[in-house]
């Protein structure tokens, strides 16, 4: 396409896989080069999209407001943190009623816990309230993308798939199970709904 710096794609990833993506890396020495989290299914992620149920929000800041939200998908919980540098997202977490469906776009960030474990969280660029259809669509989309990543890792063995097999000892099987449980969960709610409205129906 063009030579302009390309925008980072928002990876679709379930909470279970995201929370395991504790290994981060850069692709150049440049200080401002993007930091990537390595998804265990073998893809780099500098941005993710999570859609789920915001179940709780809490101001965990000491001196200034620092909001933590729990966003739950069929496989686990995303932790979302927004402070003074993410004022719009912090506003949403402060104001919104729970439970509510939200779409969170953000950057993966890792931090060490007091016990020395590496945790993965989302630093939001935006949080918006959405409806249940958007959430259901995200579940199928994320299932689809995860399956594609697992298949690609097995068939082609990309650079990131190799990196994942070196960095993580978690087999892809875990994430296949996450996909299965997410889809089974969805399948029990939605049977035979119309696929999509399409432009014609606009």
């Amino acid at each position, binding site marked *: 396409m063009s030579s302009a710096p390309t925008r980072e794609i928002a990876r679709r990833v379930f909470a279970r896989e995201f929370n395991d993506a504790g290994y981060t890396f850069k692709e150049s020495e440049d200080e401002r080069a993007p930091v990537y989290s390595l998804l265990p299914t073998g893809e780099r992620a500098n941005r993710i999209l999570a859609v789920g149920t915001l179940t709780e929000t809490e101001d965990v800041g000491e001196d200034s407001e620092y909001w933590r939200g729990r966003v739950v998908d069929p496989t686990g919980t995303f932790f979302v943190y927004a402070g003074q540098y993410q004022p719009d997202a912090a506003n949403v977490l402060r104001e919104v009623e729970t439970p509510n469906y939200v*779409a969170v776009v953000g950057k993966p960030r890792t931090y060490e816990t007091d016990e020395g474990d590496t945790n993965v969280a989302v630093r939001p660029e935006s949080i918006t309230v959405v409806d249940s259809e958007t959430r259901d*669509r995200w579940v199928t989309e994320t299932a689809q993308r995860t*399956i594609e990543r697992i298949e690609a890792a097995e068939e082609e063995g990309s650079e990131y798939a190799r990196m994942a097999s070196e960095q993580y000892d978690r087999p892809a099987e875990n994430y296949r199970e996450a996909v299965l449980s997410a889809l089974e969960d969805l399948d029990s709610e939605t049977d035979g709904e119309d696929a999509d409205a399409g432009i014609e129906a606009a």
Partner: protein
Amino acid sequence: MTDVHQHAVDIHEQFSDHIDVDVEDVEARLDTLINEYRVPAEEARRSVVSHYLDEAGLEREDIRGESESRKIESVDAPEQWIDVTAKILELWEPRSESVAQVGLIGDETGTIKFTKWAKSDLPELEEGTTYHLGNVVTDEYQERFSVKLNRTTEIEEAEEDIAVEAPDSERSESEAIELAAIDTDEQWIDVTAKVTDLWEPRSESISQVGLIGDESGTTKFVSFATSDLPELEEGAVYQLRNLVTDEYQGDFSVKLNRTTEIERIEEGLEVGDNTVESEGILIDIQNGSGLIKRCPQEDCTRVLQNGRCSEHGEVDGEFDLRIKGVLDDGKEVQETIFDREATEELGGIDLEEAKEMAMDALDTTVVADEISEKVLGRYYRVAGPTLGRYLLVNEMAEISGPTADPEELLIKARSI
């Protein structure tokens, strides 16, 4: 004011059998929409009717409209209740089970598509027969009108046959479509298009060759010397009936022929580029979105930065609405631009409302914020021509439902 009152009286009459409401209440609602929010009267009326339908738990077709006797040619707005006397010219294959019959009807002034719903439980219409159709409702889709028969429609066979202003049998199979929708050869079609280019014919058998375009895109056309048709002029807009499509190495063209009817129409037509489609979640709304100001200099229209045009310096800008949005499907990103019309549709805020909002807040950024809140994180499918790395949105739809069949995904996930 009196118009508002008249509309209120009409609406009140429609509902008087169903719910207890006074004319003043109806009028107040209409007044707010029409006089405060500058909603066109027809639209306001529709909206108020919807409100009362909701309140009464009724479907739109449960209330009888005040229908008037009309000729087909005069149909120029949707959601009007009319009576027509027309002949069934063609019956088409319904594409959906909810449709009992669909086809073309005509009277002395023209032809129009009709749809009869299965649930309306109406008698079968026969091709070639003329009927009085009482209380049908008009509809519009992509600027084409049609009429819908419904539960309240009265159907009566007419004593006399009427002469229809219509196409002979040869063109009866042609279908009005947009140029970009051409996807098979030897299809008989009708188009409304502008002649955008005329080329030198390379053969004596060809009288004219060039490009015609409509809003959806452009297509090559050929007119043969033997067809003996009038000359088309570059830049003019024509209604062309009974063209036949052709395909050569994957490119489609249209051929004019002896049966083609050419009618020049005095209307402007914006010729579109070939449209592309994109879908994904609206993941970001970029700077320069919302309520903006453009340079008023002729042919400039640059967006001002702090009241300055990069070409003309400090100018009094003109307000406009625009959204620069990014669609992301998890594999690719597509940058898009929504112009004023598209932004109004997407965000549900028109330019006047946007200006008022900005005025109240003493800040223009509230507009983009408000729109973002409504649209970010939702899935859309958009279509339009591309310009550089942007897709210029002409059509949009919010999409829901799964991206792939969950059953199939399950089978796949189990098999890997």
